[in-house]
């Protein structure tokens, strides 16, 4: 007879998923009388956590990293299996250094893939959701990082999903970060919960299915570029 311990290690194939979220000053604006965009974002992140964790298999396979851009780019929630993911509260402040956010995300993905490889754990192509309600404010750094992200997709290293929030956003800027055939989707902040449920649903499906499996975006957004 042995001592009763937790002797199971999660060796499931992982789907690393990065959310680059906007915490810049402009996210303090109200959206369709539904409240401030930043508050809607924070509520939606909780919905995202709950939705992922409701799926027993996906909660072991999807890994989440949240990068915040607002003044600086920093890690709001470090890599965690979805079962251990705790939705962060995104703070407001500063401009939108989206280029720095992309570089941070790519660097964290590299580290995570190295770690998974070292542990002999298989993984799917990482996903990056890139969301902003405005224009990138880091000039040439944005241009360079967008080119790096686009190339990483052409090289088959990641899949990126640019999301323009509200009418003040610039889909054409976001389009620079993806290959021509990949769309930019626009969403109103009031639809954040539906969008994050979609992201959760897509990642849950992809964690169990073939690479790149995606779902219909339904009613939460529209293709704008």
């Amino acid at each position, binding site marked *: *007879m*042995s*001592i009763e*311990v937790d*002797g199971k290690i999660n060796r499931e194939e992982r789907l690393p998923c990065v959310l680059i979220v906007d915490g810049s000053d402009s996210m303090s604006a109200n959206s369709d009388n539904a409240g401030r965009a930043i508050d809607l974002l924070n509520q939606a992140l909780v919905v995202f956590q709950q939705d992922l964790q409701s799926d027993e298999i996906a909660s072991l396979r999807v890994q989440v990293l949240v990068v915040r851009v607002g003044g600086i780019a920093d890690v709001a929630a470090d890599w965690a299996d979805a079962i251990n993911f705790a939705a962060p509260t995104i703070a407001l402040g500063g401009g939108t250094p989206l280029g720095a956010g992309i570089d941070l995300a790519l660097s964290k993905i590299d580290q995570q893939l190295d770690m998974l490889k070292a542990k*002999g754990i298989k993984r799917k192509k990482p996903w990056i959701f890139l969301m902003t309600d405005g224009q990138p404010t880091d000039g040439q750094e944005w241009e360079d990082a967008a080119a790096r992200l686009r190339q990483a997709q052409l090289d088959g290293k990641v899949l990126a999903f640019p999301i323009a929030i509200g009418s003040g956003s610039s889909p054409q800027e976001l389009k620079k970060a993806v290959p021509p055939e990949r769309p930019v989707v626009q969403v109103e902040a009031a639809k954040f919960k539906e969008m994050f449920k979609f992201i959760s649903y897509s990642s849950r499906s992809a964690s169990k299915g073939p690479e790149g499996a995606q779902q219909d975006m339904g009613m939460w957004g529209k293709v704008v570029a």
Partner: protein
Amino acid sequence: MLWGWPSMLGKRRKSSDMTEAEMLKAPERYAPAPSRFECVTRGGWASLGASVIGPSHESDSLVRQDEFAHNIVGDLYVAAIADGMGSAAFAQVGAATCCRHVVARIKEALGLASSARAIDPAASVRMDKDAEPIPWARVIAQAILEVRAKLQPTHGKINGVTRPLFDTTLVGVVASPESGFFFHVGDGCGVAVAAPEPGTFGDIVISPPENGEFSNVTFPITMDGFEKHLRITPFSRANLIFLMTDGVTPFSLESDERTLRPRFLQPIDAHLAGVRSAKGAEKLRDTLNSADLRQSEGDDKTLVWARRRP
């Protein structure tokens, strides 16, 4: 007792019972038992250790390449575990020689230590009766150098291919009732806990694994410049110690390798604190050999648990 000595009865001794000299002279003959467990109790300390072969080593027809050694001198505790690296031809000899020799040398130093209450890694002790006192860190390095001298040559030709012979990692601990330190080269892990109540952990100090670019690359004591990888981690007011090889760390540590996973070390402590005997060590062995652990991790597994009564 003379009559009980196997050679006197004309029986061939098991290869797992070879002396160190025999082991080093004919390393190809040394085959440790697939598992072992052992209990040492003295003073306020109880130390229970177990080591088991991993399923991947079994399927490759290899022997167990982990080993442990532990001892108690008055109120002072010393233990070490070693993980012979799979790339080495006689990793089991390296592991056994390393942890046994290091523990024996530290035991000598502890016997000569002036204080039985506090162990400070910066303090100086004598390694031998007539030797000058030197800091603990140098004692550890010196003991490792002695092991390295025994494990020569480091490389040899096996079936026409030059291979390392004895590469092994090392995690050890020296502890008194008030303080202590881990000494560590390579992967594996040491955990010191303030835990007056069994199964409930207070302050925790971890000596984490050190790996190369990938977690399956680590640093053996036999490598040149091992001193750069010798880490000394002090702790105080810990009454509970764990040492483990890398076959056990995935169950004990989160993937950041800096924090403890829940529901692994705590229930082991809660159980063993109530046993403190060879029966507890046997149960520890059975736990390391349980189906869940075997299915999750193919490597050899070694875990030493030690707890001091207040």
